[in-house]
């Protein structure tokens, strides 16, 4: 049984890429000696020193702007946004600047930058520390959007993100850190994982569940429960939202003909809507039932645990919706 954790994956990807390429550096709030608010990068400061980990004032726009500027002149910055919600203070740098630089300069400049966003709820983290904003970034041409669900994927995809020539928004779900300890130090070798290649994490025949980040775990638990009832779920983890593995989705729907999409972000305008549109555009003839989305209800994330449970997707909601579809 391996102890290799999601946090290990992130930390090792950064460390190995820093070893490989002296241009790689990290910048963000408390990323220095403290190792970040979740301790994910703890120890890197001792290993690589202050010139590789720039511990900043609380100034998100200047932080991301610094990464953009450094990237334009040869740096390979990794920004840590302590809580993804705070990225909203840096939107000009992400959306007006980084995302468009390559395009509006006619290909003359590029911004090879990774913005690590700690996303989702850790339980009662409230409306301004729990949002799942991936659909907003996926909407913007010029950005790539990555959403790993496992320790191995976190490591392999982050390595690819750091080597990528374009700006990459890299979501890390805090529910995949919290309660699982910080980095354990156990090293697992993982090669860079190419973007745009999804993964079937459970094989099945009755229906395909597409899910990512923490919600993927709920989907897996739901599939386990449903298998006891004789319902066979296939689970497809796209791993990257932009680019999206449309061929992989089609392959799965060829087997199942039914699609349920589960994510923590609010359902309305969530990335699930895009996935549903891909399925409708590419696989209409394969579908034998309506596409169902299980996302958060369309509210800010509430504080009280009972209300939070009521709004966010859960194992039982996924089970219930699958039963309705397949039953």
């Amino acid at each position, binding site marked *: 049984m391996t102890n290799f954790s999601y946090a290990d994956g992130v930390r090792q990807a950064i460390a190995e890429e820093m070893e490989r390429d002296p241009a790689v550096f990290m910048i963000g709030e408390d990323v220095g000696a403290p190792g970040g608010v979740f301790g994910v990068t703890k120890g890197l400061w001792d290993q690589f020193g202050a010139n590789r980990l720039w511990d900043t004032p609380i100034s998100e726009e200047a932080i991301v702007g*610094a990464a953009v500027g450094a990237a334009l002149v040869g740096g390979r910055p990794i920004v840590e946004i302590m809580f993804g919600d705070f990225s909203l203070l840096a939107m000009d740098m992400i959306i007006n*600047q980084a995302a468009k630089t390559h395009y509006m*300069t006619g290909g003359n400049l590029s911004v090879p930058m990774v913005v690590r966003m700690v996303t989702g709820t850790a339980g009662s983290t409230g409306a301004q520390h729990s949002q799942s904003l991936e659909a907003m970034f996926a909407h913007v041409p010029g950005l790539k959007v990555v959403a790993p669900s496992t320790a191995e994927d976190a490591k392999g995809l982050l390595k690819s993100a750091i080597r990528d020539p*374009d700006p990459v928004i890299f979501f890390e779900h805090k529910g995949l850190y919290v309660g699982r300890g910080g980095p354990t130090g156990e090293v697992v070798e993982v090669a860079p994982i190419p973007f*745009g290649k999804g993964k079937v994490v459970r094989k099945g025949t009755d229906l395909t569940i597409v899910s990512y980040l923490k919600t993927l775990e709920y989907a897996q638990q739901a599939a386990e429960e449903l298998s006891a009832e004789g319902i066979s779920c296939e689970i497809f983890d796209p791993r990257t939202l932009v680019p999206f*593995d449309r061929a992989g989705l089609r392959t799965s729907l060829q087997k199942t003909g039914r699609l349920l999409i589960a994510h923590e972000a609010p359902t309305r305008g969530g990335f699930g809507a895009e996935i549903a549109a891909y399925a409708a555009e590419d696989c209409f003839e394969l579908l034998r039932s309506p596409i169902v989305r299980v996302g958060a209800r369309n509210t800010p994330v509430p504080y009280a645990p009972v209300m939070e449970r009521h709004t966010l997707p859960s194992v039982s909601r996924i089970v219930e919706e699958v039963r309705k579809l397949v039953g």
Partner: protein
Amino acid sequence: MIDTTGSVDARTPVSLHEGLDLFERMLLIRRFEERAAQLRAEGLIPGFLHPYIGQEATAVGVCKALSVEDVLTSTHRGHGHMIARGADPARMYAELFARTGGYNRGKGGSLHMIDTALGFLGANGIVGGGIPIAGGAALQFKRTSSSAVAVTFFGDGASNEGAFHETLNLAALWKLPVLFICENNLYGEFTRQSDHMVLDNVADRAVAYGMPGVIVDGNDVLAVREVTREAVERARRGDGPTLIETKTYRHRGHFEGDMARYRPKEEVAEWMARDPLVTFPKRLSSEFSATETDLGDVRTRVESRLETAIAWAKEQEHPHPEDALDHVYVDTLEGAALQ
């Protein structure tokens, strides 16, 4: 040391040749902009223009104090900075005309023009947008022990943006090699400075971040060059950033088409008398013995260069509609997946 309270004595010896070169560069900007406005009226330029006319001494004074390794970020009013840095007017016109021969292959236009060979990292459509980016370039220079300096131009209006304040704090904290050049032309878009901030001087804001703030006559090219040199030396020594406020004036509206009726006539007249393209040639004659022939030759060269540039730009091809799909990403992967 830089005088943080007042103007700088610009008595560095200047040769006639140097003086004429500064004049030529300023005139090239002035005439580039005047011709651009005409060409826009003729329908050759589809988008926005924010003419730099009136502020030429600042761009030229700053750029003449820099080295080839240095980089710059600019504003929506960026043509002057770019020409001062040495950009090719032909490729600039081609970009304004939205042709493939333009600096950005017709994808950027006036607001996003770049010249990577000159370290010109871009005009910017967002007020204050270039400031954090210059901070980042300076960070990379510091990280790699480069002697290069980053320079960012912005206006009095941008000094009210969060990006300005966040970046000044960060740059002072880390002693980054960056120059903050505030061209105070008295107006943030249509709003007079006294209606958008309490302080008389943007440079006074430097105190809040622990860096020197210098005020200079932005219409005096020699004075601007002098204060910039001192700030560049300071940055290269590792002593950190400087905020330089150049007091200047835009002769036209915020953008081409804005009649700028919000400005008092007396104010306009006062500043027109200080037009650097009027005062500097006079100074060249009185202090540097420039002859009418010297000045006339400069004028002829500028006109000829611009007409050649315009003719070249007009010959450049229009992009194909489907070129719009290129350059969204560096990495094309499987193109369809990214579309």
